[in-house]
């Protein structure tokens, strides 16, 4: 206990320093802006902060670990004023609590899914105080809460604490309308089930992530059916992996195929032989970058045309319908459902194809997550110390990046990768 509080206090001090320093650095920034025509340092900073945002897993992990920590009274005291501030800011023109209760009823199914997926998360949410006590730096906390709260927006009621913050985020404001939306969408999915069996495929369109919706549909309607979930937004998905999943895991066929076309015809043949077998393909983002190709779409269309294979897909890109010509359209036999959810594209944009992450081809962010998870608490502490040190010196031109990452994967990466690690690690409060 003592040790911990001791450790916490220097960090506090550091943070205070940091906040002061940030003011200073802002001044510097302004100076730089004036003096330097290029805004390079500014960009670098922005990139640093950005990297962290989409990576839900890191935060998950942080909270997983943080639960075990005992109460830290000083920390609580410290947070108090800020909470007040939050409440002040939060009491804007809308009533969020109302919204949240509405959300809770609307998204009961998806919450179930959430529970089934990560029981540990549930614990976390049900006891928001524990995460408060983590001693996460106050400057960072809103950001964290923001990410966590909104990423699970519509999935959990108990996280009230987090959404009770000062951001006028997305749909969070609009209680009744969202409830109505979700209700309508659920009705739709019930109906669509029946339609799917008639040889129609279903495509969902409209702004907002449709993942949660499809997931809840899957959990409520498809539990007794053979079904595949395909993440079209996944950066390295291929048509081959989809087909192999069908042949290997569903049809239990061990052999290999010469090309996707052969494989497709094999699947179609097998489906014809066994009309009692119904397979449901749920394709999140059938317009994903890897599935956009003409050939891929052709194969998917051929599969969709089979009477006992049903496709339920979602599209997000504004030009997605261009992927299908008339003959593909008729093979798919689409029925369109508008499902504007306004849900943030958390999962979809968390991969490396995001705008603000260097397009390096390697899975930098997600591999980082894995590395962090695999570390022992001690190693993580060291890792964090190093990262903090790195961060402190990020504006120091004389300080060159040392290969300081404990993991070979991260060190082998370019300097950018190192920056990423350093940016995300200070949020890690679990240096025990």
């Amino acid at each position, binding site marked *: 206990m003592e040790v911990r509080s001791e450790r916490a206090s220097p960090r506090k001090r550091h943070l205070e320093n940091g906040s002061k320093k940030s003011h200073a650095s802002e001044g510097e920034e302004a100076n730089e802006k004036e003096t330097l025509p290029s805004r390079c340092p500014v960009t670098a900073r922005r990139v640093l902060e950005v990297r962290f945002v989409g990576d839900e897993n890191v935060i998950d992990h942080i909270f997983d670990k943080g639960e075990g920590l005992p109460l830290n009274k000083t920390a609580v005291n410290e947070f108090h004023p800020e909470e007040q501030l939050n409440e002040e800011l939060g009491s804007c023109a809308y009533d969020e609590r109302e919204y949240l209760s509405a959300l809770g009823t609307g998204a009961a199914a998806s919450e179930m899914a959430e529970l089934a997926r*990560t029981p540990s998360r549930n614990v976390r949410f049900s006891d928001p105080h524990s995460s408060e006590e983590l001693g996460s730096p106050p400057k960072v906390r809103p950001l964290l809460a923001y990410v966590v709260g909104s990423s699970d927006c519509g999935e959990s009621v108990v996280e009230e604490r987090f959404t009770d913050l000062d951001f006028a985020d997305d749909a969070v404001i609009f209680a009744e309308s969202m409830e109505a939306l979700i209700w309508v969408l659920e009705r739709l999915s019930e109906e669509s089930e029946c339609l799917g069996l008639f040889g129609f495929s279903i495509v969902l369109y409209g702004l907002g992530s449709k993942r949660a919706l499809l997931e809840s549909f899957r959990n409520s309607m498809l539990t007794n059916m053979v079904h595949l979930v395909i993440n079209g937004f996944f950066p390295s998905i291929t048509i081959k992996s989809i087909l192999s999943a069908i042949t290997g895991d569903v049809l239990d066929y061990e052999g290999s195929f010469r090309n996707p076309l052969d494989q497709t015809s094999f699947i179609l043949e097998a489906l014809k032989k066994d009309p009692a077998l119904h397979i449901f393909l749920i394709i999140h983002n059938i317009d994903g970058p890897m599935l956009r190709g003409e050939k891929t779409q052709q194969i998917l269309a051929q599969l969709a045309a089979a009477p006992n294979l049903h496709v339920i897909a979602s599209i997000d890109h*504004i030009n997605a319908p261009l992927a299908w010509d008339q003959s593909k359209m008729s093979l798919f036999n689409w029925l369109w459902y508008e499902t504007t959810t306004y849900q943030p594209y958390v999962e979809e944009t968390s991969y490396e194809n995001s705008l603000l992450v260097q397009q390096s081809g390697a899975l930098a962010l997600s591999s980082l997550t894995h590395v962090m998870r695999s570390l022992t608490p001690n190693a993580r502490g060291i890792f964090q110390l190093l990262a903090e040190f790195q961060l402190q010196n990020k504006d120091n031109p004389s300080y060159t990046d040392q290969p300081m990452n404990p993991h070979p994967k991260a060190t082998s990466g370019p300097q950018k990768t190192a920056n990423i690690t350093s940016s995300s690690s200070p949020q890690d409060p679990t240096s025990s």
Partner: protein
Amino acid sequence: MTTSSVSKGCFVFKPASKKQRILSAGDYFHDEDEESASSKLRFETLQSLWQQIKLETDSIQEELNKNILDSLAEFARTSTTFFRSKTDEWTFRMRSSEIPTAALVLGVNVTDHNMTFQNLCELLHQSVTPYVVGLDAKDCPSLKHTLQKLLLHLMGYHLSVEEDEEETQPKANISGIPKKRIQCSIATLCEWYQTVTKDSNVLSPSKKRKSTLGKFGQNPPIVVIFKDLESFTSKVLQDFIIICSQYIHQLPFIFIFGIATSPATVHRMLPHSVSSLLCIELFQSLSCTKHLTTVMDKLILTTSFPFKLNGKALQVLLSIFLFHDFSVRNFIKGLQLSLMEHFYNQPLSVLCCDKHKASKRAQMLSSEECENVRQLPSFMRYVENQEPDEQVKLLTDDHHLKEVVQQLLKQLHLYHKNYYPVLRCLHVLTSSLPKYPLGKQIRELHSMCLERNVWETEEYKSAFQLLRLMAKDELLTAFTKCIEILTYAKGKVINEVQEKLETFVKLFQELDNISLDYKEDDGEDTSPQKGFQQKTDLFHLQKTLLEMKELKKNKKLNKFEMLRLEAIDFIDHIVKKHLLPPEYLALHEVVYYSCSGTLRKHLNAAPRTAIQTALNNPYKYLPNESLQSDGGAISSTAPDICIAYKLHLECGRLINLYDWLEAFATVVSATEGNDTESPVIDDVKHARFIRAVSELEFVGFVKPTKKKTDHVARLTWGGC
């Protein structure tokens, strides 16, 4: 099991129990507040109806294609005999290297073509040759692939694309060629063809082929169908044709080109040197609008299907057909969807079946369903028009209600029985009028009648004015056609109408006999006209015209005109009696599907518009007062992505990220009541901005660019 992972994009879920529940779509027809028996019944009705529709459409398609397919088969046959004829004939040598080719113009409705080709293949298979190959452009990106596909189809071999691949092993050995590596070339095919044809004469192990070949004579042609000529690469096609023409002596090729646009495509795709190798004959398939007319005739303008579409729903389906794809298949798909929606959403659709079944089912209505009946708007209207005693009885006594429902259903049935013949008659009468006031096609007239009282429309009035001026010959032919139509339809009312029309025709014909009187009458009329021709100055012209007008007014109508007036009035009367819109009938909800909006949404969606509306005007989806923006103002309470989107609309092709961020922060901090001039860009705002931008990128509005640091490129036009 989660479905998000950093290493996997594809997740398989199998039900835990090995025994998979055998699912039927009927399971999904349950409603909590309804007995499963009736929903099951509903589902069964739906299925049987759909089967009926499917059979009907298939037979229509077959019938319509029969002519063209027969002529194609005939073409193939004659070309073969040509090939077999004596080789030393001069004409043969002249045309020796020409490949007989049929250019089949099918129209732009590509989706309907598959069916046609399937039928064609079957027909050729049965009557002309066992060797029919259909090639899709998507399978033939190169010559190698094309040849491979061709050989694969013909010889039943499994060939690899790479000729030199070692593992290429023939899978089967049907045709008697020894097991060896197969080269994908026409030479191989040639060899194979000779073996096969020889085998057909001599006894050989190829048992299957032998029997079939006997039927087709010595040298059955090889028919190659290019299903979608436009999509083929012209290089591949050219090479293929040149190669084939080299082998035409050994291999009797026949090509069939499926053309969607116009026959000129052939010449556009093939240079003269290649197209001169083809001996092209043109075939034109039936136009899709005619196809649609037949389908409408058989499926919609008939009493044999109890299910009906109301005016708006039909209009939606028709406009999708006419303005989007010309695809009959899609039209039928729309019909299927409306059928399904109707049976799924309308619990009373259980009564949507033929007359006898319907009255039986009406007797078995449950109390809940009776309540449903009472809540139908059309039934409520019916009740309101009844006596008070009857009203009470209808609203309380289930038994009585059932009887009334039976009666009403019978009335509804009778209405349909009379409606269609009368509609057809009206169409016959008006379809030849100048300018087609009531539409050229019967479907236009039909949707007009469905929507409102047709006799109240301007078009109807002008049509009848024209009808009243019709010449006798035209009128007579139209009337005889009407009588013909009415004789097909049975029923008391219709028979009466028919008799009446027949008497009219008789009267008209009698007029012919006394037409001499007419001519005398006409003689008087002509005199002023003669005078009018002589005088040409304006004053006199006006004067004579006025005189003529006076004359006309005063002139008594002659016999023919009187009769004509009477006949047209009679038609008018029938129309008013029988062409009521279905909305006036009680219980029309049972058989009419009316959710045109649903149909349009599901079949003819506009995903991009939806996204842009959601971004531009979130109030539409999230009706919160604070979102009601006037003009170009950006509401600070809008979702982040909307704010970012609106800000990006104000930029040019390249957007400076930092400026964007600052603007974003300014807008956002307006919410928080910060009056400070320069907003503080804190971490939260930063994160929100980043997320909004990456979401915009994901949706496809911006993309990263390397042209300028810290900039993103806009991908859409317009905005400010």
